[in-house]
Structure formats: C-alpha cells, structure tokens
C-alpha cells in the first residue's frame, strides 16, 4: 500500500537527513563535550560511546544515538541471530541506523502535555448499541 518507502531503509549513509538548527546545535554541543572528556560525576555506564569508538556509518548520529543503535542491534541478534546470515545482520544494522535518523526529528519536536496522540480509543456507537426505545412513543395524554 505504499510505494518504495522501504527503499528509504536502504540508504547507505551517503545522503544525510536534513538537520534542524536545534539538532545541529545539540550535536555540536555533544561533540564538543566528547572532545573534552566525560562529564564530571557521570558514571561509566552512563558515559555515551565516544565519537572515536563510533562506526563510520553512524558518524552523523550523536554518541547516545549510536549507542541506542548498538543496543537495538544486539537485542535483535539475541532474538533472531540464529536465523540471520552475516549479510542480513549487516542489513539490519543499516536499517536500525536509518530508523534512528528518522527518530531524531520526532524526539526533538516540541510537544506540550496536552498534545494528545493521534491514536485514542473510539467508542463503539453503532445504532445497535444505542438503548432501545420501548415500542411506540406514548401519546401525551398517556403521561401520568
């Protein structure tokens, strides 16, 4: 039901998504931090992957985003690794990177508490669900 949006996922990293000013600023800030060392008081577990440790295909992602890709990839392999060839694993990683890129502008989008989800419960209000009226409407003079 869609045209090859799927090819979106085939992107090989040569083309980068549009970067908003806010996103650019965030990345610049993260990169600057990475270059001066870990934040004071941060635990080793919370320290994002350093840029130097990032793989070349994720260089446009922040270290935290890159780490998220790694986590998702590891989880996918833990579940389905026995079914997948090396080539398929590489493809999945590429897909996860692309998915991460798409999540960026969504997460940065400014939302207020009152901005509801497009998905919400719709009550079933079919005619059959309406209370039945009992027989013919009564005449006014029947009312007591």
């Amino acid at each position, binding site marked *: *039901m*869609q045209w090859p949006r799927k090819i979106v*996922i085939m992107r090989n990293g040569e083309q980068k998504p549009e970067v908003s000013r806010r996103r650019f600023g965030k990345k610049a800030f993260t990169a600057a931090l990475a270059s001066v060392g870990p934040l004071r008081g941060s635990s080793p577990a919370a320290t994002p992957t350093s840029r130097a440790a990032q793989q070349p295909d994720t260089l446009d992602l922040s270290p935290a985003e890159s780490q998220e890709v790694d986590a*998702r990839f590891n989880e996918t392999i833990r579940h389905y690794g026995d079914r*997948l060839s090396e080539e398929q694993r590489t493809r*999945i990683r590429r897909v996860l990177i692309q998915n991460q890129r798409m999540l960026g502008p969504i997460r940065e989008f400014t939302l207020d508490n009152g*901005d509801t989800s*497009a998905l919400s419960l719709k009550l079933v209000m079919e005619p059959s669900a309406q209370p039945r009226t009992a027989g013919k409407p009564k005449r006014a003079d029947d009312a007591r």
Partner: protein
Amino acid sequence: MLGEEVLYLSISELQSHLRRRSFSPVELTQAYLERSHSIGPKLNAYVTITDDLALEQAKAAEHEIRAGRHRGPLHGIPYALKDLVAVKGYKTTWGAAPFADQTFDYDATIVEKLNRAGAVLIGKAAMIELAGGLGYTNGNASLTGPCKNPWKTDCWTCGSSSGSGAIVAAGLAPWALGSDTRGSIICPSSWCGVSGMRPSFGRVSRYGAMAIAWSMDKLGPMARTADDCGLILSVIAGHDPKDHDSVASYGAEFTYPSPYLEPRRPLRVGKLTNVWNKVDPEVQSAFEEGVRALEKGGARVSEVEMPEGPFEQAAELTILIEAASAFQKLIHSGDCAKLADPLGQVNGYASEAFSASDYIQVQRVRSVLQRKVDELFDSFDVLTAAGQSDVAQPLTEPPPKTPPQPPTGERRRARAIDTKAPDGVSSLCGLPALAVPCGFNNANLPVAIQFIGRAGNDHAVIAAARLFQRHTEWHKKHPNVAAL
C-alpha cells in the same frame, strides 16, 4: 469483438453504450478477458483472472439491464481488484510467497458493495509483496514477478498497486482497485498515466483487505478519468462497523455527482513550492504547463508552502511500527525469509526494536502536524504538486557507469529519502488526493499532476482534476500495447 477504442472508454461512456445496447455486458467482459489473457502475462499484471465469475456476473447484469433494471454506474462494468482484497473462493495471495495459497471464506466489504452494484470482477491484480509492508528495494519484489509498465516494458509501474496501474493503462479493464498507505495509488497512477484517487482515510471500508498500517491504509480507484473515480467512490464509500477506523455515516457516504457539495468557483488552488527535494526538469515543465491549463480553466492559483515538520519521518515510522504488529505472526515464524526481497526478509526484525514510547511520540507529533496542514485549507480548496518527482524508472539495474544517468539504485534511494515528498504529509494526515496525467517526457513516459484536499473533502480533489481534464487531453492517450 469490440475494438480497442471501446476498451479505453471511460466508465460513464461504457455505461451509456450498455444502456443504448451498443454492446452487452457479456460482450464487454469477453473483450476485456481476452485482452487480459493475451496481454496480461506480458506485463505480469494479474495474479488470477476470474473468467467464470466474470462471465456469471456479466450474464446477470445483462439480464437485469435488458429487463430495464439499472443498479447504477458500475452495473455490468468489469474491474480488477488488487490481490490484497478477499474474494470468497479465490486465492488472495497478498502478492507474497508465504501466502501463495491463501483463501478466505468471505468477501471483503468492498467486494460485497461492488457485487451489489452489479460490477463484474475479471481478475485479481498483481502487487508488490505485502504491499511493501515489510519493505522492498525494487519492482521484482512480487510473487508474480516484476510488473511491467505498458508505456515501456523495461520500466516499472511503481508500486505497490503495480498490477492495477498496468491493467488500467493497458486497457485490460476500465478500472482497478488499488490501495494506498503512503503513495501506492498516487505513484503507479502517475507512472502509468492513469487517473488514481486515494480517498480520505476512513471513507472506504478495509474489512477483508490486508492491513499494513491500520492508521494509514486506504483503498481507492484507479481509472481513466477523475469523473470515473467519483462514480466508483460513490459505490465503494460508506460507513462499515467492521472497520474500526471507518468514519461515521455522515462523513463516509459519498454521493456523486453532487455539484452542491463541490467548491464554489473560482476553484482556489495552492501550488506547493516546497515539496519534492528535486524534480526532474521534464516533469517540472509538464507540471507548470498543467497549472497554466488550470488557470485557463478558471482556477485561481497562488503559490503556497507546505508547513515545516517531520511529516515523512512520522509517516515512515508509523508504517514501520504498525507493520511489525500487522505481520507479527509472519515475522515470529521466520516465514518472512520466504519473501522475495532481501529487505522484506529482515525489516520486520528491525522494526520490532522500536519502543512503545517512540510510537506514542510519533502519534502525538502527528496530531500537531495534522492541525498545521489543515489550516492551509482555510485559504485553498486544493493543493497541487507534481504527481511524482520523476517518470517511470527502469526495472533492471543498468550496468555500472552507464552514462548519462546515475545507477538506478542510487536514484531510487535519492527519491526514497525525499523528505519533502507530499505523499508523507497527505497520507499521514488522511487527506484525499488524486493524480491525473499531465504530459509526457521525451521518452514518451507519462507525467502526472496531483491534487490534495482537506480531510473529508473528496469532492474538491475530484472537481479540481475534472476541471483539469476538461481542458486537457492527456488522459485520453494510451500506450501501443499491440506492439508487446
């Protein structure tokens, strides 16, 4: 036997002949069946041709029409159905190997409606496997092989309603049903040079049709003219309690023609100036010419920008995440390995890695974007843009370094990452859209113009496209399939 010129008539013209008894529904059906059998396989256009059912329905229609009982605009008119819609007793393959022998013991709601209208089903149209629900990289991703474009058979029809596009363009049926989650009617209609309409979300029941993304899937007609799309929509639209997302009766019913429901004149058209990252110059030129034709026809055209926002990303993510749920059984069983496309084989695994909060976030962003886009329609009846940014692309990869074009794979990727494609916006927000032919490039491949309307205002897009077709002849051109 009826001549080719008859087989390219519009529904209203065919109906007029049937009423005048220039030919009968059986004769018409036989002519389309014969053509479908001789040309269909050359294009890989069909999964199944339903000869027996078609002739049975045509005979019933003939009997009734002779007796003076007319059921409406589709009575006795043949059509094809994308093979993701259930027809009792016939295979419904979803275009994919894991479902090659699948049958249903009931008819989809849309089939019931078409049966009641006396329409004649001549076959089930080929499609991209799972309508692209788990991803695909090229037109070969189909149970029935690559669907070939009747205008140039080494080019693709686009997908995922690939067979529907080929069938209508090649004159194998006067119309076909397609489905559209994000561009799957608009793109094949554009590339095949036919008139294709994606109705407002929730207007046409999807009960009995394969789901990819419940919050985005739509069914709609692909036909010769915008007027035909209106006639078909008047039959297939309507509230259905079996479809959770079906809108209430007052919003789902669609009467056509209904001049009083159409926009006042002059039609206010917003020409979108910031959609598509890069448009092929020949496409742009044909589109500009099309806009001039609209103005000559009395439309008031002014330039407008689509609001900024992550529309494409939100559309894409919604589809990926919902599809992982829709095809969960296939993914968990490992049968996705039987899909033809290497991306489809693994994409579901990756999509399962999204978090619930990501999905909810996307849906919250979607609500905001929906309101932003809706505001545009305070000033315009319809928005317009090129149907696609380019023309039909080659089916096979050209050899490396083939001048002057860059390799097809790269070109496809370049299209695919078009964050300014209007498909994402309009699909995400459930807006109606209609693409009609507006010219050809130098290689004689069709170019299209599309009209996008406010949610629920399907009459506006039909009125705009009909105005365009009243002042142009592009929709009357058809490919030379005799040479196939």
